[in-house]
């Protein structure tokens, strides 16, 4: 071999060695071999990386294993009392969740005239009809949990404590729709007359 080809060979080796650095390129940090939320997985037959909960799975975080809290029923049927403490904060939470999940069909006042109903969904009964005015708080919880008529169950979308908050709010909504101005406490009435609808409510 001549000195010349020796030198060429060395250059070739150097370039090839640099080329080895390219092995380090890739997206294996950005796309790690792990299943993220909602990602598919060929490992399971249904192709989904998420696993459905087993039948009868009970959350230990939310109310332990109290069946009333999860079903709205006790030995005597649908409960008439909230299994959690009623507070102004609970009603506000119920109002917020009602406006998100229920008002679309039931309407913001419970009349059953929500936007989806106006777009063709069969109209639900008004919360202000006598049968539903008499229905217990457990009845509303049960309807949300198990579905009712054409309404699907919301159990997978609204956690139980929020379902209770909504049930409590529906009862409050019914009171509000069948109240007269005499039912309003004097100091709140003054605020209402001044056009301040929220000013004197407890916060």
């Amino acid at each position, binding site marked *: 071999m001549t000195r010349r080809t020796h030198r060429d060979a060395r250059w070739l080796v150097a370039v090839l060695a640099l080329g080895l650095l390219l092995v380090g390129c890739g997206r294996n*940090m950005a*796309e790690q071999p792990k299943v993220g939320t909602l990602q598919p997985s060929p490992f399971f037959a*249904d192709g989904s990386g998420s696993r459905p909960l087993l039948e009868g799975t009970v959350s230990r975080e939310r109310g332990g294993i109290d069946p009333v809290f999860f079903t709205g029923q006790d030995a005597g049927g649908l409960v008439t009392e909230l299994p959690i403490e009623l507070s102004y904060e609970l009603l506000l939470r119920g109002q917020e969740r009602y406006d998100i999940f229920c008002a679309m069909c039931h309407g913001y006042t419970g009349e059953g005239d929500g*936007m989806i109903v106006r777009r063709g969904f069969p109209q639900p009964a008004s919360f202000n009809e006598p049968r539903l005015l008499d229905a217990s708080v457990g009845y509303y919880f049960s309807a949300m949990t198990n579905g009712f008529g054409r309404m699907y169950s919301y159990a997978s*979308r609204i956690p139980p404590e929020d379902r209770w908050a909504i049930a409590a709010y529906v009862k409050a909504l019914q009171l509000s729709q069948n109240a007269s101005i005499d039912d309003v406490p004097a100091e709140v009435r003054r605020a209402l007359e001044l056009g301040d609808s929220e000013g004197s409510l407890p916060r």
Partner: protein
Amino acid sequence: MPQHFPPSTNAFVRWAILGGGAFVVALLVALPIFARTMNNAVGVPVAQPIDFAHNLHSAQLGIDCRYCHTTVEVAASANVPASETCMTCHSQVRVGSPQLEALWTSWENDQAVRWNRVHDMPDYVYFNHSAHITNGVGCSTCHGLVDQMDGIWKTEPMTMGWCMECHRAPERFLRPRSEVFNMAYRPPSDQLVLGSELVAAYHIDTDVLIQCSVCHR
């Protein structure tokens, strides 16, 4: 001491130093140009198995973001709704519509609709929706006016530099918690004053926000 390398190696080393320097400079110039021009597919609609219209469902019908994206307040991931959520209305409304073919197939076969991901964070980023929602970062701050979109696309590049614009100075973007889901919210003229108040009120530790381990683990 014997010579280990022949004199010709000097040239190689010289070129390697020059070439290496040039390579680093070229990389530093090219990467930002690449990032700016590609812009991470901002504004490019992502095709989906169903031409879901956020503008119809959100702006016109007035459905809250959280009706479908139920976990956004409590979990890292803002879930894409299960077909059950779609079927809550579509078992009665627009039944049999060919536009919803993928939904009917999904429902009948108990298989998820394979939506295409729009915002794909690298796996080394541990983004958490609930942490942002509960600290006053509005939906539209990062996702734009999704309620006006007839398809779905990114409105922000979602690069680390973009994240840091807020992580370095959250007072520029924060809004009251009550306005987080309000798509019509516009920042007030005294945003920096309000933002600073919110940073204090929500106990946001701005020293922690710029630490690596906040997002990378």
